[in-house]
């Protein structure tokens, strides 16, 4: 069996969001702008691109861009789609099926709501009507989607391991502290554990501030071979390991609500990269809700199963802490347009290149971007590293 380790590298990234929560541009034009910016960051042009990834329809995207890619990927696993795209793209590049691959995402739920003047906005695709198992076995019971399934995971974690609402709240507090250093973040005022606990209960035990934002946002990445990356201007960020696993679609089918498929995706990605949890300088772990991030910490092996609450309660995931997590302010405070996984990669790349501005970590060499899609359904883990780690 071959390995992807070090075969491909991220060479360009871009993202956009606004403190207002709303972007001017939307639709394909927004996606095109992100691709253009990521290619410019890489020192490449659209004519170099021979592979496209899109979480909905790569054909329509390529048609709009006027390119004829020889590698195409429309994999949609919700929020983890862009980590899965990266895994596929790295494999394609390693096998010689593609040379320069782009993935892009843009979504403007806030602007769409205004443009649709009173309509219900884009929706997230979680509550599709019609003959699907969810309509038959979940929707009649009134569980709020997608928040309810995460609330159920949190209830179970609390009952099983003694995790407290305060510990979950600390994740939101530490993440907000990072957001104060991101000028594009939707929320930049520091918050306290009390602020989280006194924000309105949505689905017990999750409060409003345990939940991600609904904001406009967009991003893109460009990946190429290690050989070609060496000729480009910016330092390459290598894909050292990748792994994906999903174990359900509906929350009622999840085998164990306190253990995600991240155990599998993480083990495979870390194994391919040849690293241990201790080697990781930055975790970009999908934080759709505070409980989501807590489960990643356990399932990727940064602390034992059940210890996530005690692991985070001293604020170690915040600025100045011993375990930086979600330095861009996360889905909780930076932006969350629906499928947030793109922003995990963009921030990991910027940190490893030393481009993260006020929130820059001191010489990080290994970062993990861990996407979560559906309702804790599809986990996809990327281990990224600098030249020194290759």
């Amino acid at each position: 069996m071959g390995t992807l380790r070090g075969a491909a590298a991220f060479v360009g990234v871009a993202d956009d969001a606004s403190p207002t929560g709303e972007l001017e541009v939307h639709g394909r034009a927004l996606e095109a702008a992100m691709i253009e910016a990521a290619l410019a960051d890489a020192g490449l042009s659209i004519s170099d691109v021979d592979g496209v990834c899109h979480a909905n329809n790569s054909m329509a995207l390529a048609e709009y861009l006027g390119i004829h890619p020889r590698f195409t990927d429309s994999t949609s696993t919700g929020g983890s789609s862009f980590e899965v795209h990266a895994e596929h793209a790295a494999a394609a590049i390693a096998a010689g099926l593609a040379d320069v691959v782009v993935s892009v995402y843009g979504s403007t739920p806030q602007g769409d709501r205004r443009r649709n003047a009173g309509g219900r906005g884009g929706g997230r695709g979680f509550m599709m009507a019609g003959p699907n198992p969810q309509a038959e076995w979940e929707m009649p019971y009134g569980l709020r989607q997608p928040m309810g399934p995460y609330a159920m995971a949190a209830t179970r974690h609390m009952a099983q391991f003694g995790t407290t609402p305060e510990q979950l709240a600390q994740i939101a507090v530490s993440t907000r502290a990072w957001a104060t250093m991101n000028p594009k973040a939707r929320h930049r005022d520091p918050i306290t554990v009390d602020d989280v606990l006194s924000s309105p209960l949505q689905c017990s035990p999750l409060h409003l501030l345990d939940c991600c934002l609904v904001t406009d946002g967009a991003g893109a990445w460009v990946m190429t071979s290690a050989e070609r990356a060496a000729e480009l201007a910016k330092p390459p960020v290598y894909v050292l390991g990748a792994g994906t696993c999903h174990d359900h679609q509906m929350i009622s089918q999840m085998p164990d609500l306190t253990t995600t498929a991240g155990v599998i995706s993480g083990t495979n990605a870390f194994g391919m990269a040849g690293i241990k949890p201790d080697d990781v300088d930055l975790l970009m772990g999908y934080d759709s809700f505070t409980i989501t991030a807590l489960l990643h910490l356990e399932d990727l092996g940064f602390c034992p199963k059940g210890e996530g609450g005690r692991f985070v309660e001293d604020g170690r995931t915040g600025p100045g802490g011993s375990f930086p997590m979600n330095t861009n302010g996360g889905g909780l405070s930076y932006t969350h347009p629906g499928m947030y996984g793109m922003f995990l990669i963009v921030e990991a790349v910027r940190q490893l290149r030393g481009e993260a501005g006020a929130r820059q970590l001191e010489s990080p060499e290994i970062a993990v971007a861990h996407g979560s899609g559906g309702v804790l359904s599809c986990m996809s883990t990327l281990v990224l590293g600098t030249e020194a780690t290759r």
Partner: protein
Amino acid sequence: MTTPPATPTRPQPPEDETSRPFWEATRTRRLLYQWCTVCDRPVFFPRDICPGCLGSTLEWRESSGRGTVYTFSNVHRPQMPNFALPAPYTVALIELAEGVRLMSNVVNCDPEQVRVGMAVKVTWERLDDGRHLPQFEPA
């Protein structure tokens, strides 16, 4: 744009040929699940083939209707206007004694009193078409 209906509503569960025995049994307030005779294990939701062995070796069995709360959430801010239950209401995953897990509501119980591991038994809510929806209450 549709105006929300004034009366409380439940999204009515659709059914197909595969799940019809389940829903037909609810007309007489019986809770069915499937059993794979090859794997010797229960299966839920209803399927044409066993998710363990892919065999057409599934038979219908009747549940005791008893189980425990595996986990739950009390919905304080509902998504659906005029949902059948007033907020806060409890949505739970129920683990039946026979070993399958299904989503339902815990009713006839103060949401604040619902606990993981709590013993529950099935009770039925009549749907418009004569079928019933399984609900659970403290046992």
